[in-house]
């Protein structure tokens, strides 16, 4: 095997050798450089492989034929092999990426570059402090050189600031080193570690200087202005190297040197790392310049890894996986993003929409963003999950909380950026010109990210390769994205059907899961059918839709908390992309994402508490959590409620559902929301009545007010789809209220609402969505009189709203009936009344919907409008079939559920054979009611027909209207501000206070960020001062 020492020999030999080449032979020299980097990669790679196979053990490489401490020695162990390979790979790819530019500048640039990579290798391998110092210096000088590959005044300034900063800190490093030698009598790291110089005050100071400087090399917040300037002004191609390779080396050095100080230093590293992670990401929220933003993010991520390094004693056996997963994730994603930035060549993140001109790049961009925020299936997801679990289970809750805060702050700007990229108006004609040498490296890192995620699976308890099956299909759908929509639609439906078939055994026997299985999967297929009326390719729709359904399926089938969370995040990601497809949905998708991420973190914490008390990842761990019981359950409940859009957490929903595409709205409204309900139901069942007494009581009130406010807001909507969206909020309020009662009747009511809401909301959104597309307007008052044009749609909507309003004989009433019984038996009278009030309000918007669309005056521009396409009507009518069946035979559905529930709650409702349901309070025979009403209806209709002769049809405007004929439908169609009276009376209830509340919070965060970032005055000298102050403060915290 080729010795690691040849990394140095080759690199330097080549660097010097390139001097021979004149300007003429640039190509040769450039290829030589690449060859050299490739060979370095090969050397470290083969060692890595050998260690992977276990065919070698840690090697000490001696120089000059003497043993340490008398001479310098390097070490090549497993860790070193990994690090050097990472460095060299990025070096090689970076070389490929910057190929042209390096050639332009000339041989010297290539030499500098190759020397830089070499120095990083040595920094990782060397075991000699002074040697470390020398190669750190080489690194910084080479960096200072590479900065000015970008030839402008800014990069010059950045370079000088960088030199000043590194100059100061390396001087201090030197002092530390020489005194370490003075006290330990050796420069060898191991020698110093064994010498325990830290025991004396002075020795401690020496060690402190070394550690402090190595920390500062990692650009800790806030003493890092110089580093940020480098990121911002250097060529992105080089920014990738700094962010990925240099940081990797620096982190490893810190990890390597930390033992010199002994255990006492780890907590301080944790502190520094946390401050850096949170602070840097917080300040990043205000950043508009892409490269600087990436700088903030890089520093943040490095801070995170630093934290993990500091946590090494706590994490124990899990340390290696967590640290490596997070490091690798950052390394790949950040390199990719910087390289993308190099292709885009746009400073402002708001100009990045050009990325849309190239689908492949766009997808890669998305991958990188989601990897950074820690979504599945990327390594950071596994890493963060394990990290939080371990932290909480070792009572380090605050660290966990801060880490999640930092990640959230990162999410704030990353998703803002993503939104801009996906949605911003494309104002430029110029197309991206992408040369292969820039494209390939990005693809490589992108793919490696996915692979890395896949291979992290075995390291995490509860993770299965099984979860990746749907992902594979999604990737496949992504690859065939060029096909026309109907083909992909068919494939998706087939795929989903098959997958449902596979996973059905997993839910079979568990009735609750089966119900949600039907809602998620069958509902999913039905909503996909609607997609058939879409023309063209519908690029990017199917992968994300399937991603959402895959997530839902995973939530349903997973038996471990990890699996649940995996599915949850997958579902969130998928739904985000579905929602953001809508024309005006950028801000709504953004707030949806923020709420989802925050909610997910709460859930994660809750799971961590469960894991702590039960010691297992199995979902059963949620049963009677022992530690921080109330807190844990509250966190989980609130987390799930972000998805059910309960009052206070609902502000994302109206826009997200209202602005979504016509067939996406039913997906996210009728189906997606139920995921939150499923979560809550699981939670409540595990939590039990006693444990959650107060929590449940509060949630009951929340549910009631959610129902009231949601419905009230719906009444005053003029936008058809938003009306339905608000109505969803209300309906979910009912459900929350119902299941919070924790009685059999309550849960029966809850299930009835779940099923009904799924059925009628799907119908309404499918049909209304179709109509919105047909009429080309969202506004109810611009529709009207469509009954004659779209009778089938009308019937569908009519059935929908009758169910919604809970009017007998349709199944909506079943919910109301159960509700009344449940409320009175539970004794939640007042809440109950609020809910019933909400119910009668629901009737109002139901009428407003059907009236404004189908009745009243037909508009001139709709005179020759067509009925909706079968693709829309067929699914709708299938769902109507469901409603009719449920209405006619409620017993067949509700009795089994009741029996299932009686396992958890005392049974309070029983069913006689002929469909009569009785409780101690009341009785109801849905079947009979339906028959009676239908019969009466027929009789009365016959009677009317009998007494009525031949009717003549009137013209549209032929009405008694204050003794004159109106001539314009607009003036005659009463829809706008329909319930003015009600609005005057109780409109104040829905003043947008909650929206304002969240607005203020976000403003506060941004102001804080804006205040902090004034530290970065741009003056290199000030940055040097920062460094000194940082060291002093660090000293007083650690040794003072």
């Amino acid at each position: 095997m080729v010795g690691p020492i040849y990394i140095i020999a080759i690199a330097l030999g080549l660097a010097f050798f390139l001097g021979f080449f004149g300007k003429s032979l640039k190509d040769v020299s450039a290829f030589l450089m690449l060859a050299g980097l490739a060979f370095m990669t090969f050397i470290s790679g083969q060692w890595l492989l050998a260690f992977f196979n276990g065919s070698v053990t840690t090697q000490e490489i001696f120089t000059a034929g003497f043993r340490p401490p008398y001479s310098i020695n390097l070490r090549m162990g497993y860790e070193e092999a990994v690090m050097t390979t990472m460095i060299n790979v990025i070096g090689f790819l970076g070389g490929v990426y910057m190929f042209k530019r390096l050639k332009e500048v000339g041989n010297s640039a290539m030499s500098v570059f190759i020397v830089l990579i070499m120095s990083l290798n040595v920094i990782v391998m060397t075991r000699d402090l002074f040697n470390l110092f020398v190669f750190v210096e080489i690194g910084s000088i080479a960096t200072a050189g590479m900065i000015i590959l970008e030839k402008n005044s800014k990069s010059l300034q950045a370079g000088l600031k960088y030199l000043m900063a590194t100059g100061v800190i390396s001087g201090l490093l030197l002092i530390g080193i020489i005194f370490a030698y003075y006290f330990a009598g050796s420069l060898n790291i191991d020698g110093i570690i064994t010498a325990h110089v830290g025991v004396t005050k002075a020795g401690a100071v020496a060690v402190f200087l070394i550690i402090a400087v190595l920390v500062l090399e990692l650009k800790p917040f806030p003493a890092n202005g110089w580093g940020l300037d480098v990121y911002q002004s250097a060529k992105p191609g080089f920014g990738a190297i700094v962010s990925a390779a240099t940081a990797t080396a620096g982190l490893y050095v810190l990890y390597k040197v930390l033992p010199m100080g002994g255990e006492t230093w780890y907590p301080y590293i944790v502190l520094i790392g946390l401050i850096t992670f949170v602070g840097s990401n917080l300040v990043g929220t205000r950043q508009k310049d892409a490269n600087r933003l990436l700088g903030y993010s890089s520093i943040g991520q490095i801070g995170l890894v630093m934290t993990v390094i500091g946590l090494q004693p706590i994490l124990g056996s899990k340390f290696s996986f967590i640290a490596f997963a997070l490091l690798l994730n950052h390394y790949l994603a950040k390199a990719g993003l910087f390289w993308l930035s190099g292709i885009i060549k746009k400073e402002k993140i708001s100009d990045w929409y050009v990325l849309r001109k190239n689908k492949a790049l766009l997808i890669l961009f998305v991958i990188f963003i989601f990897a950074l925020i820690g979504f599945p299936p990327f390594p950071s997801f596994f890493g963060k999950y394990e990290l939080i679990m371990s932290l909480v289970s070792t009572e380090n809750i605050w660290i966990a909380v801060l880490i999640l805060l930092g990640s959230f702050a990162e999410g704030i700007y990353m998703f803002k950026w993503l939104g801009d990229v996906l949605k911003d108006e494309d104002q430029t004609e110029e197309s991206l010109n992408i040369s292969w040498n820039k494209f390939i490296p990005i693809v490589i890192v992108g793919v490696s990210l996915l692979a890395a995620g896949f291979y992290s699976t075995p390291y995490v308890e509860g993770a299965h390769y099984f979860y990746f099956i749907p992902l594979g299909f999604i990737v496949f759908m992504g690859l065939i994205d060029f096909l026309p929509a109907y083909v992909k639609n068919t494939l998706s439906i087939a795929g989903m059907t098959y997958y449902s078939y596979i996973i059905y055994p997993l839910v079979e026997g568990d009735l609750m899961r089966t119900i949600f299985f039907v809602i998620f999967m069958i509902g999913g297929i039905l909503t996909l059918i609607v997609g058939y009326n879409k023309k063209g390719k519908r690029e990017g729709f199917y992968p994300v839709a399937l991603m959402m359904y895959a997530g839902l399926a995973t939530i349903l089938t997973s038996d471990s908390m990890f699996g649940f969370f995996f599915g949850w995040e997958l579902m969130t990601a998928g739904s985000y992309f579905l929602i953001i497809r809508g024309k005006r949905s950028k801000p709504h998708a953004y707030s949806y994402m923020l709420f989802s991420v925050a909610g997910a973190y709460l859930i994660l914490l809750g799971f961590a508490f469960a894991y702590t008390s039960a010691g297992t990842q199995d979902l059963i761990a949620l049963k009677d959590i022992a530690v921080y019981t109330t807190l844990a359950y509250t966190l989980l409940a609130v987390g799930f409620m972000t998805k059910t859009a309960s009052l206070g957490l609902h502000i994302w929903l109206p826009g997200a559902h209202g602005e979504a595409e016509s067939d996406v709205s039913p997906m996210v409204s009728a189906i997606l929301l139920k995921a939150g309900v499923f979560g809550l139901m699981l939670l409540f069942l595990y939590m039990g009545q006693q444990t959650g007494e107060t929590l449940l009581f509060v949630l009951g009130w929340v549910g009631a007010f959610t129902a009231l406010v949601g419905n009230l807001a719906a009444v005053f909507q003029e936008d058809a789809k938003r009306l339905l969206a608000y109505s969803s909020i209300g309906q979910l309020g009912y459900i929350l209220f119902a299941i919070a009662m924790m009685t059999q009747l309550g849960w029966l009511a809850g299930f009835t609402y779940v099923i009904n809401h799924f059925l009628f909301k799907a119908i309404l959104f499918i049909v209304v969505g179709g109509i919105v597309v047909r009429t080309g307007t969202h506004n109810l008052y611009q529709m009207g009189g469509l009954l004659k044009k779209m009778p089938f749609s009308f019937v569908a909507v009519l059935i929908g709203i009758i169910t919604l309003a809970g009017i007998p004989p349709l199944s909506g009433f079943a919910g109301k009936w159960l509700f009344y019984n449940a409320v009175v038996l539970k004794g939640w009278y007042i809440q109950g009344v609020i809910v019933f009030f909400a119910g009668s309000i629901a009737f109002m918007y139901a009428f407003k919907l059907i009236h404004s669309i189908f009745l009243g005056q037909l508009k001139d521009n709709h005179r020759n409008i067509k009925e909706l396409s079968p693709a829309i009507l067929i699914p709708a009518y299938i769902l109507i079939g469901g409603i009719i069946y449920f209405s006619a035979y409620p017993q067949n559905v509700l009795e089994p559920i009741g029996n299932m529930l009686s396992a958890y709650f005392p049974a309070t409702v029983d069913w006689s054979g002929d469909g009569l349901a009785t409780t101690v309070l009341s009785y109801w025979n849905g079947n009979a009611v339906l028959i009676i009403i239908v019969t009466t209806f027929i009789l009365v209709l016959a009677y009317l027909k009998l007494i009525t002769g031949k009717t003549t049809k009137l013209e549209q405007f032929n009405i008694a209207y204050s003794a004159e004929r109106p001539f314009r439908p607009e003036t005659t169609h009463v829809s706008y501000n329909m319930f003015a009276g009600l609005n005057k009376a109780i409109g104040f209830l829905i003043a947008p206070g909650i929206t304002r509340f969240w607005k203020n919070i976000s403003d506060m965060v941004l102001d804080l960020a804006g205040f902090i970032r004034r530290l970065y005055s741009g003056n290199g000298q000030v940055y040097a001062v920062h460094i000194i102050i940082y060291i002093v403060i660090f000293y007083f915290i650690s040794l003072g």
Partner: protein
Amino acid sequence: MDYSIQKFLWTLLGLFIVLNWGFLMGSTMRRIGARLAGRVGVPIYQPWIDMIKMISLRTYLSHGVLYYIGPVFRLVGGIGMFLFMPVLVGSEIWSNYSFSGDLILLLYFQSFGMLGMALGASESGSPNATIGISRGLAQFAAVEVPMTLAVIAIAIQHHTFSFSEILDAQQGGFMNWTLFTNPLASIAGMLAMLGAMSHSPFNLVKAPNEIPIGPPTEYHSSFLSVLRTNSAIIHVVEAALFMNLFFGGADTWFMYIIKTFFVYFISVFIGMVFPRFKIEDSVRWFLKWPTVIGIIAVLVAAYWK
């Protein structure tokens, strides 16, 4: 004779009685109102004449299918309410179809007719109709609150939603009437009734001088006759509902007629003396006093239980 057919015929008979009693009551009330206003008023048999006139009209104008179906919905709503409520206490024959559902069913079945009316009227495309409906719905929603509170209070008190049981509990002397056993609930309920009957001061729904008779604006001839039939029935049934809830129900047809008349008379009488509310005022009003009383009623009932 087959039981179900027998039952059907008895119910039909009951319906017939109620209908005519409704007509009679209506005209009587109009006469009383006229007298209070110092007029003579219509003859007692006016409603029947109207019916005959409307049915025998020649021209039948329609705005479309729903315009046609609307009145049917409306009437089914009225008849349904009659069907799902026992007429006479403890009488098997006169219990109608109340076995298929109870108070809760009835409360929600009110909306059935309203929906039909709303659909039919608003298909006519007349803004007056729609305005009337929107006001009606708003007021209905507000009225529901004290109504629900009263019903819940009663349900707590008697621990049932079933009419027969509520009625049984009120038998044996008027002191057992809910009116006396649970006065607060009764007050709330009666106040709600004023709204439900939508007489003045809560009749802005069909404000005769502002939007000519509101929702039914466009209706005439046989359609209107159906609506009139319904309103005749519904008035009696609504009155009967409150009678059953608060006034101990009726064990004979005679008591039935007396009590319904009395209950109905209350609402009309108040209508005579009070001016009309604006819709937002009536909504506020119902959400203020009746609601407060209702809440107290519920709390009291809950406390006693």
